[in-house]
C-alpha cells in the first residue's frame, strides 16, 4: 500500500439508472457461459437451416412459390429461437439478479446509494438488451441462411424478389412473436431471481417456469374435459407459456411448430389479445420484482 490518494470526500458520485445499466452490461458481457450458450443457439440455427435445405416441400416449392416455402421454414426457425434464446435469457437474467445475493455484492451496490428499483430496472434493461442482440443476430443469420438456400435451390435470388407482401408481413410478425418471447423470458428471470434471491435456486426455477405452466395447461385441459367448468378455460387463456406457444401461429396465420406440439390455451384469443396477456405478465412480474426488492432486509 504505497502512494496515498489525494484529498477525501470531495467527489460526489451519483448512482443513476444509466450508471447502473452500464455496470450491469459489464457484468453480463464478462460472463462467458452466457455467450457459450448463445453460440450454441446459433449452432442449432445452422442445423435447422441445413435440415430445411433437405426438406422436400421447400426444395420443390421455393423456386416457384416462395411463400409456401417460407411457411414451411419459419415455424422451425422460430421454435429454435423461442426455446434456445429462452434458455439463455431465463438463466442469464435470473443469474444477474441472484448473483448479487449469492456473492453478497448486493450490499456493496446498495450500500453506496444505487436504489433498489434502479438496480432491478437496470438488470431488466441489460437482459432485454441481451435479448435484442440475440434476436437481431439470429434474424440476420436466418436471413443470410435463407438467402443462400434460395440461391442454392433456385440458382438466383429471384424468388425473394417475387415474394408477395404477405410473406414480408409474416416475417415481421415472426420477429414480433420472437420479441414477445424475449420480453417474457427476461421478466420471468428477473422476477424469479428477485423473489428467490438465490443463484442456483433462481436459475432452476426460471428454467422450470415454462415446463410448469405448460403442464398446468395440460392439467386444466384434463380438468375441463371432466368438469366442463368455464373458469378452467378462462384460466388457461392467462397462462404465459401456452400463450407464447400459440402466438406465432396466431400472428402469422401459419401452423406454428410450437403450437402443434406444445399446449395452447383452450380459449382462442386474437393475436392482439395474446400480446396483451404477454404484456400483463411482464408488468406483473416487474411489479413483483420491484416490490420484493423494495423493503426486504439485505442480509446477504
Amino acid at each position, binding site marked *: 500500500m504505497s502512494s496515498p490518494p489525494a484529498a477525501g470526500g470531495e467527489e*460526489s458520485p451519483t448512482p443513476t439508472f444509466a*450508471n447502473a445499466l452500464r455496470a450491469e452490461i459489464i457484468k453480463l458481457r464478462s460472463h462467458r457461459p452466457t455467450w457459450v450458450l448463445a453460440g450454441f443457439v446459433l449452432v442449432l440455427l445452422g442445423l435447422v437451416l441445413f435440415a430445411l435445405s433437405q426438406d422436400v416441400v421447400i426444395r420443390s416449392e421455393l423456386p416457384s412459390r416462395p411463400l409456401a416455402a417460407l411457411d414451411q421454414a419459419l415455424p422451425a426457425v422460430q421454435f429454435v429461437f423461442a426455446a434456445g434464446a429462452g434458455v439463455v435469457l431465463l438463466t442469464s437474467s435470473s443469474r444477474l439478479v441472484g448473483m448479487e445475493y449469492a456473492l453478497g455484492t448486493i450490499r*456493496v451496490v446498495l450500500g453506496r*446509494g444505487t*436504489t433498489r428499483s434502479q438496480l432491478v430496472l437496470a438488470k431488466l434493461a441489460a437482459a432485454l438488451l441481451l435479448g435484442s442482440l440475440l434476436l437481431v443476430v439470429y434474424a440476420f443469420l436466418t436471413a443470410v441462411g435463407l438467402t443462400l438456400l434460395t440461391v442454392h435451390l433456385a440458382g438466383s435470388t429471384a424468388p425473394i424478389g417475387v415474394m408477395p407482401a404477405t410473406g414480408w408481413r409474416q416475417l415481421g410478425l415472426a420477429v414480433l412473436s420472437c420479441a414477445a418471447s424475449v420480453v417474457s423470458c427476461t421478466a420471468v428471470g428477473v422476477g424469479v431471481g428477485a423473489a428467490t434471491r438465490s443463484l442456483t435456486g433462481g436459475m432452476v426455477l426460471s428454467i422450470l417456469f415454462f415446463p410448469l405452466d405448460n403442464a398446468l395447461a395440460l392439467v386444466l385441459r384434463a380438468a375441463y374435459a371432466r368438469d366442463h367448468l368455464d373458469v378452467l378455460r378462462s384460466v388457461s387463456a392467462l397462462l404465459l407459456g401456452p400463450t407464447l406457444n400459440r402466438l406465432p401461429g396466431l400472428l402469422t396465420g401459419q401452423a406454428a411448430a410450437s403450437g402443434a406440439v406444445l399446449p395452447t390455451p383452450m380459449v382462442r384469443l386474437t393475436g392482439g389479445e395474446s400480446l396483451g396477456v404477454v404484456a400483463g405478465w411482464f408488468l406483473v412480474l416487474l411489479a413483483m420484482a420491484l416490490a420484493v426488492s423494495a423493503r426486504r432486509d439485505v442480509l446477504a
Partner: protein
Amino acid sequence: MSSNAAIELQGLGKRFGRRTAVEDLDLTVGRGEVFGFLGPNGAGKTTTMRMVLGLVRPSAGRLRVLGGAIPEDSAEVLPRVGPLVETPALYLHLSGSDNLRVLAAELGGVPPGRIPELMELVGLSDRAGDRVSRYSLGMRQRLGLAVALLHRPALLVLDEPANGLDPAGIREIRALLRQQRDRGTTVFLSSHVLGEVERVCDRIAILRRGRLAYTGTVESLRGSAGWFRVGLDDADQALIWLRDQPWGSDAHLGESGLVDVRSPTGRGRDLNLALAGAGFVADSLTAVQRDLEAAFLELTEGEG
C-alpha cells in the same frame, strides 16, 4: 441532531423475529474521527453497520449519516460512504481491476486512472488482471478495501477490515486508516483485534448483546476501574483489613509483594487516606493501567 456528526444513532433497535440483535443504541461518531466499534461475536456490530448502510431497516429508533436520514436520504448520502461489510463481496468471475471497473461504472465520475492507483495502494498491482476467484482470502480483503476507497468516500464503514490479513497487511491497514484520517475521512471500524483498535482509534464503543456497554476513549476505559498497586511494609495485615472493606474485597497480592486494590472513590489520594486512617502507611502507590483486553472482557462477559 447536530449536522457535525458523521453518524448519529438514536434509540436504534433491530429485531429478527424474536431475537433482538440491537437494542436502544445511542451513538454519535464525529466527523473526522476514527471510531472503533467493538463487542463479542453476535453483539450486533454487523447488524448496526448494515442499518447505517440502509441494507437493514431498523425496528426502532432513528439514524442519520453524514447529515441525512437513513433510509429516506440514502440516495444522497450513501454515495459518499465506502462500505466493507463482513467478508468482502466481489464478482468472482471478474478480475480485480474489473471489479473496480464495474463499481466505478455503478457510481459514475470515478476517473479511470484511479483504478490502477488503488490496486497499487492495496498491493495487488501484479495480480490486478487475475480472476478474483483465484485470490486468497487476504487478497480479497485487500480488494474489498480498494472497493471501499474507490470513490474517495467521506465516511468509511469497515467491518473487520483486518480479517485474513497477514501482519504486513495489518500494518498497512493501520497506515491507511491514519492516512484516511489525515485526509479528513471519518472511519467507523469494527474489529476484534484490540491492539489495532488501540493504536488507531480516537474513541471506541463497546456493544454487549446489542446494547451499548461503553463509549469513550481507550485511555479512559483502561483507567476507568481505578486500580492501584500499593507498596506496604505489612502487606499481609493490610490485605486482611482491605478485604473487609466494601470497596476492597477483591484486593490481592500482586507482583513483587505489592498489593493490587481498587480505590474507594477511584482516586489514588482517597485510597491513600483510607489506608493511613487504618494505620497502614503506603511506601508507594501507582495507578495500574489495565490492558485493553482485560477491560474489554470485564465489560462484555458475565450476566447482562
